[in-house]
């Protein structure tokens, strides 16, 4: 999985976050409302969205990488419609096309939203939508400390490499789980310090 991206202020980024958020949800709902008969019509918005992705000048490499990571899941679930009894015929094929096209379209919409809208803006929208405060605080802290913990795990990996050994394959599981365990312990002690710091800065939920 990529490190969290850093949206650049390009074309779609000029619009307000809530506009993009609403547009993305409306587009997804519209996509889901297309009946099976008109499955191939979904190719039109697909082409338009691909053009929008190109025009928006967001970095293509992470975008395509995410898309390629998600796509096998879509194909896998959609392939069930071909395998079912009586599938492979017109019905199965049509269902497969519909499922694959509309899920791909939805993923591209969500990726476009993610790559043009920083996550903290999305959390702000969620807060405006009256999502409970505890959940919003957790999301905010999680987003804030994601990079910190990722760096911490990379530091631990680097430290392990510096200390000269290449672990045996069976040993690697043990090592990785120790890393995960240490990461949790460090998270709990960091949470304590974060709380102290938040209180020192007048945090009051």
């Amino acid at each position: 999985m990529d490190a969290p991206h850093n949206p650049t202020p390009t074309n779609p980024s000029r619009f307000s976050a809530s506009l993009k958020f609403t547009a993305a949800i409306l587009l997804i709902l519209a996509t889901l409302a297309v009946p099976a008969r008109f499955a191939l019509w979904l190719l039109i918005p697909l082409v338009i969205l691909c053009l929008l992705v190109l025009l928006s000048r967001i970095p293509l490499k992470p975008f395509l990488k995410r898309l390629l990571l998600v796509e096998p899941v879509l194909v896998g679930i959609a392939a069930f419609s071909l395998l079912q009894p009586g599938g492979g015929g017109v019905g199965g094929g049509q269902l497969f096309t519909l499922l694959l096209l509309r899920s791909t379209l939805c993923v591209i919409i969500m990726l476009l939203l993610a790559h043009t809208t920083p996550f903290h803006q999305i959390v702000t929208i969620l807060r405006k939508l009256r999502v409970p405060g505890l959940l919003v605080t957790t999301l905010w802290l999680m987003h804030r400390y994601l990079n910190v913990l990722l760096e911490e795990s990379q530091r631990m990996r680097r430290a392990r490499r510096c200390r000269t050994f290449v672990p045996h394959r069976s040993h690697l599981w043990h090592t990785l789980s120790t890393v995960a365990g240490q990461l949790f312990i460090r998270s709990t002690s960091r949470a304590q310090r974060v709380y102290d710091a938040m209180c020192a800065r007048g945090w009051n939920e």
Partner: protein
Amino acid sequence: MHIPDGFLDPKTALATGILAAAGLAVALRQTHKNLPRKQIPLLGLSAAFVFTAQMLNFPVAGGTSGHLIGAVLTAALLGPSAAVIVISCVLIVQCFMFADGGITTLGANIFNMALVGGVGGWTLYHLLTRIFPGLFGRILGATFAAWASTVLASIACAGQLAASGTVTWSLAFPTIAGIHALIGIGEGLITALVLAAIARTRPDLLGLPPETCPTTPSRVPCLTGQGPEGGRQACVDQPSAEKSSTPPSTSTPAPQPYASLLAYGLLITLGLALFISPLASTWPDGLDRAAQSLGFHHLESTTRPLPAPAPDYKIPGLPSGPLATSLTAALGSLLVFTLSYLLAHSLTRQTKSNPKH
């Protein structure tokens, strides 16, 4: 197991959305009431931890790799209500930052992984730790619960996909549950190893008395394995501030009032009753439902250009029918339980016989 957008029909998406929102509301209320204010940052940090831990790739045979899912691990360390919030946050971030799991299916994903996986897994873990006390019971419980929660969540996922008419239940159920029964073994193994690693350094986080672990308090084993190959171990001195600033039992799960557990149980039962029981009772009707809901049931009588790979709703080579399914499930669970028992036994013995750390 993340269901992407486009695979659930409106009624399933709406129903799972309502169930997930209700479950999340119970969890938030419960946490708000019971969790001390100073532990609120712990929820965010734990969510970040689960996300980071999911990026550690454990090598599996043939160049493939797997990673931790973390539902039972979180539930074992923080308790069920906090786990529901933590896993929901992870799912929300995965949805909005990585398009992993859809926005219209967010409710279904939260229901499957946070409620069925987290709370269901915690219940099993809690029961097993009551029967088998100490570190052994905790590792055994977590291993078995991690496997069972993965399988249960996948069954709920298959049920929702089938109720939407996306897949046929009789085909999707054995495939999805079968794949996740294998993934669950990895999940159980990783959960056990991580819990054992935490118990070596901070047994208090698992609600164990400090004497369970022979660790000297100022030294923390770091990164290298703790196995019998003692020559390869390395220890670093942890900064003393790190240790002293953390009071013992920072995240010992608070005792759960039975009202909230009852609420979770009701929600999960309601969800499973909605999605799975109609499918399980009328086995051959899945395709008819799918065809009718998608409006092409009139094509039913057309000739098949390809031979069906699974005619008459049977996977070739596997016995079918509800009895055979139950028997396979019982045997599988027994096998995994035995494996968990052996793993927990070897891990606790290893910790005890390795008092250097």
